[in-house]
């Protein structure tokens, strides 16, 4: 795909901007992206701006670094908005990272110099390629958590079924 701006070089960056609650995605080459002020790599921390941003964060909440344009965005999983994050500096749930990914990717680059995790890869129990390779102890804990929720919600039919499955596993 060619760059939307110069229509000459290959586009390597997808720039998604949120304006008035609607998303616009631009496909840009590296040069045009830089002209538009998009940081394209690990150069962030080396620049004086990187230090300045670091100093800002030290004194206040990282939420303040997110532009107000996306304030109306809401995470469907937990209901918190980007505005909530700008105010408190805390995200509502793990899904917020997906719901606000464009803003957070930019923020993470400014905070850490990169948004790409290169550390330990994590495989959550029960999410292996076969889907059923969870540690049986983990499945048991899962069922127990489900049982508690079922009892709290007075869903006794489900609770009885879960109890039986727990017995089998135990």
């Amino acid at each position, binding site marked *: 795909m060619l760059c939307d701006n110069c229509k000459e070089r290959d586009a390597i960056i997808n720039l998604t901007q949120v304006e008035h609650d609607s998303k616009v995605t631009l496909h840009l080459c590296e040069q045009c992206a830089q002209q538009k002020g998009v940081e394209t790599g690990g150069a962030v921390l080396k620049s004086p701006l990187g*230090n300045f941003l670091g100093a800002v964060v030290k004194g206040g909440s990282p939420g303040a670094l997110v532009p107000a344009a996306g304030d109306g965005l809401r995470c469907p999983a937990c209901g918190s908005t980007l505005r909530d994050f700008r105010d408190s500096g805390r995200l509502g749930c793990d899904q917020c990272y997906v719901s606000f990914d464009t803003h957070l990717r930019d923020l*993470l680059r400014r905070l850490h110099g990169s948004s790409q*995790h290169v*550390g330990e890869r994590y495989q959550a129990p029960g999410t292996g390629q076969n889907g059923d390779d969870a540690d049986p*102890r*983990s499945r048991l*804990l899962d069922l127990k958590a489900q049982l508690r929720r079922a009892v*709290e919600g007075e869903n006794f039919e489900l609770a009885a079924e879960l109890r039986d499955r727990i017995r089998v596993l135990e």
Partner: protein
Amino acid sequence: MDLSLLPDGGMRWLDASGPKSTIVLSTRIRLARNVHGVPFSQRAKDSDRTAVLQRVSEAAAATEHLANAVAFHLDHMERSERQLLHERHLVSKELAGLERETRARPGAALLVQDQVGVMVNEEDHLRLHGMWSGFDLEDAYAAVEAVDAELGKLVPFAFHPEFGYLTSCPTNAGTGLRASVLIHLPGLVLTKEINKVLQGLSQVGLTFRGLYGEGSEVVGNFFQLSNQTTLGKTEDELIDHLGKIVRQVVEYEEQARDVLLRTAPEEVEDKTWRAYGLLKHARRLSFEETMNLLSGVRLGVSLKLLPGPGVYTLNKLLIYTQPAHLAAMDGRSTGDRELPTVRAAFVRRLLEAESS
């Protein structure tokens, strides 16, 4: 609360057995983790929080490293007891509810076994941590990582292929790793080189804090140095980098001490003996004064200007002269006006026991 259930009160690091322990008091590793699909602590309902605690407790019981963990339920503990755990660096101020609120929130708990522990329902659902004596990043990380690996097989952690481990505050995302060393830098303070060193830290991606971590004041020339960023580098890279810089800071500190000994040997000797004399004979001591005097004595001991006391005793004094510890020992409240008298008596007793 029965702290005697914890061998060494959960503070084996005090024994000064680790590398470079006259200058580096302790090494701490912390990993931030959250349970997938449950709102982060700040947004979680009380029922979410208790469910997280139950899930983590059950999982911990099924692991090797936390099977015999002692559990402290902070929401059922008196303020003085919570403060005591905080003074031992076992829980944060936030988890212990010592900041604004007068109680810890439901589900706030600490599980601890040997030198590793998990704070549950802190800013993140799990904060795994371990504290080691001296300058020992590798052992501390290996121990905490082992707990992480075990728990991660039983509790589904929030993880994203691009952003790594997901945390309530994006400053911790990625590895979730904060490695820190508590370091004593009187030489750099006395030679007025300290600001240069601290400014240099921010340029290499490190940060410094006071004795109790984020937001705490620097007292007694004790600084906590740690990594500032957590994303874009591997755990080993972050730890290696901190280690390299800390070794450099230790070297600067040793050079500063050499300069002091060369240019003002009598003043330094006098300063350390005065500090020792005051600690041995004073009748009232504030905590801050105690910390500053302990700093002087520690410097004197490591320069061999003073014959004693041992570093273990100095470390113990650092912890046990804090308000909640003194209050608990003497059956008083932490706001008691006689605490400075109790503190001075305690310091004298410990120093006399050591020199006899």
